[in-house]
């Protein structure tokens, strides 16, 4: 999986450079998020602007990250969801769990 990591202030931004986040590739994102939280990072923002499709495994990995963040009094926020990805969050009601922002800048302003 192609993930770019950058730091903006106290936030670590993970940009997923994949068209799909599914059972084939999502474990790599789970591993990367866990590595960051275990390394002491508290605030992670996942930028999904290039992800056109997400399946239940991809959603599960984000839930795992959310729980890992919460356990450490950190945050996992999401931004730049494409319409089909957003519809899967709504179908599974995960839009009520995550803080979801339209853009990276809007998400950064929330910290």
């Amino acid at each position, binding site marked *: 999986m192609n993930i770019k990591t950058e730091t903006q202030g106290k936030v670590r931004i993970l940009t997923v450079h994949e*068209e*799909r986040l*599914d*059972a*084939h590739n999502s474990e790599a994102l789970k591993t990367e998020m866990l590595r960051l939280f275990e390394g002491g990072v508290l605030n992670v923002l996942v930028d999904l602007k290039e992800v056109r*499709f997400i*399946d*239940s*495994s991809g*959603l*599960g*990995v984000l*839930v*795992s990250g*959310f*729980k890992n963040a919460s356990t450490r009094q950190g945050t996992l926020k999401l931004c730049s969801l494409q319409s*089909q990805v957003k*519809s*899967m969050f709504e*179908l*599974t*009601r*995960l839009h*009520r*769990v995550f803080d979801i922002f339209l853009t990276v800048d809007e998400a950064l302003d929330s910290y």
Partner: protein
Amino acid sequence: MKNDIDIEITVPNHTRYLSLIGRIGENMAQELSSFTGDRDALGHHLNAVLTEALVNAIKHANGTDSDKKVRIQIHVSNGEMMIRVFDSGKGFDLGSIADSGCPDPLNEQGRGIYIIRSLMDSVEYRRAKGGNVLEMKKALG
């Protein structure tokens, strides 16, 4: 019938084929001559259903056994789509997966069958020759 479509494809028991099968579903939605609804939405739904059904077959039914295969049939006729996904494993108990609506949002697993049930009109899982078949129908209104 003149406009009937039959597609059958067999892939190795590996998640790398999820994208291929999902794209077939998306492309089909653009080609259904009698469908008058939102083709992009239908394509996304077929992508999601095929992906979830394939993952169920690969991971849960076939137990990630790389020697096994998954066979997918898609049949469109008389305004209805039938998708069948055949595994060759010991299967899983669809009845044991509660049909009680949306799973707890904090569960990391268990959304696949819920997504399929939400996007298709009927879902059955039964024994078939040499394994099992997940059978999913959708009216193309």
